[in-house]
């Protein structure tokens, strides 16, 4: 895919996000209990979904690499994980700011929060692990294994609000605490441009990674001349 299409997609995502921001500030009424701050959910939850989606994709890509030994999948895995980490950070920080108003504290050692933080740290560990290995195939192999191990925490994060008693609000998209349809529409409506943005970022990162690999190979060739 050419970079022009990517940038166009990014532009569309930005326009959609701007429009959503306008609508959520002017068109949607405040939530009865939380007031204005509840609007953070329109970023908090989609960011979490995007983050988990990225981590799941990185698991699939890691396994695919181990099956095929094609370094392209390793490049994809690292791009996806990095963007997932960015969205994970957005999720954590926005949640903390919401908690400051609603709970009165920035952080609580609640299962949902703790497991998300562990998950984030594990994937950050994946990036550190990569930086510690020079040889490309060994790096790809070991970091793919790390991806498989790291993913074991993700279901835990996802289901922790069902399995344990937590302070974190229960799911808003299904079950008893389902939100009003206008809010739900906004939540999905904001997730779409965020997903597009994630896709653009992943693609840009992937192109960079591929170029970096070619460059390394060329430099080795030049040195061996």
């Amino acid at each position: 895919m050419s970079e022009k299409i990517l940038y166009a997609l990014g532009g569309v995502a930005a326009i959609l996000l701007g429009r959503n921001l306008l609508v959520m500030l002017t068109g949607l009424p405040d939530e009865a209990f939380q007031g204005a701050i509840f609007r953070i959910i329109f970023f908090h939850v989609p960011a979490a979904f995007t983050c988990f989606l990225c981590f799941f994709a990185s698991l699939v890509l890691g396994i695919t690499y181990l099956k095929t030994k094609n370094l392209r999948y390793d490049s994809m895995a690292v791009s996806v994980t990095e963007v997932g980490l960015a969205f994970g950070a957005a999720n954590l920080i926005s949640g903390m700011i919401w908690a400051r108003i609603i709970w009165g504290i920035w952080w609580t050692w609640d299962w949902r929060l703790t497991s998300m933080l562990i998950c984030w740290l594990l994937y950050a560990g994946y990036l550190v692990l990569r930086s510690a290995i020079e040889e490309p195939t060994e790096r790809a192999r070991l970091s793919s294994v790390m991806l498989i191990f790291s993913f074991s925490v993700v279901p835990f994060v996802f289901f922790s609000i069902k399995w344990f008693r937590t302070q974190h609000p229960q799911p808003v998209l299904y079950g008893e605490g389902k939100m009003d349809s206008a809010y739900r529409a906004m939540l999905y409506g904001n997730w779409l441009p965020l997903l597009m943005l994630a896709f653009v970022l992943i693609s840009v990162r992937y192109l960079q990674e591929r170029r970096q690999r070619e460059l390394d190979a060329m430099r080795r060739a030049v040195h061996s001349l």
Partner: protein
Amino acid sequence: MTRFLRQTWIVMAKDLRSELRTKEALNASLSFALVILLLFSFAFNPTSDLTREISGGLLWLVFAFAGALILNRSFARELPNDCLDALIASPVSGAALFTGKALASYVLLAAIEAVCLPVFGVFYNVRWTQQPLWLALVLLLASWGIAVVGTVFSALTVNMRLRELMLPMLVYPMLIPCLMAAMQLTTPILAGEPVQGDLMAWVRLLIGFDIIFTALAVVLIDTVLVG
């Protein structure tokens, strides 16, 4: 199957024998554990009731730190004279090699725990023998978790520069569910309460952690070692 068990046994016996002859990891991690136990006493008043509330956490921090030292050596021990390559080239399967090494670390870790517990009881005035069976069960389950995850990552990081730093950095976040369950269980056990009701969820978590990571490790170890 008997072949697998025999190979596992041989690897484990080899590891334990070489460790007992040199005692390098054992001595280092035991003295390290004792030093940490000592240091904690300066962090807070060791005779207060507070100790009872955080005793589980203290104990498992010590075991986790000491465990990292043992696990670091697990595969690094095979580096001189290319022993690791010889082991991989030998007819021993990856799974047997892994299980043997994990068991060897497990035994060493259990030995450290056996020494640390009485010391902990004396220094911090904790009567730790009130629920011996539950305590033993938690120790066995959680130590197995530490040994399995640690051995895999020991193999993963063995060829890396900064190996000694990478191992704890990767292993501790991975171990948090296991350590958390062990801490939550150990505190009431040390206080003499039986494990029941809500606490059973933690036991289940420990068992689940052990099963999942043992399975993952056995499946992935060949990829880690050979590629």
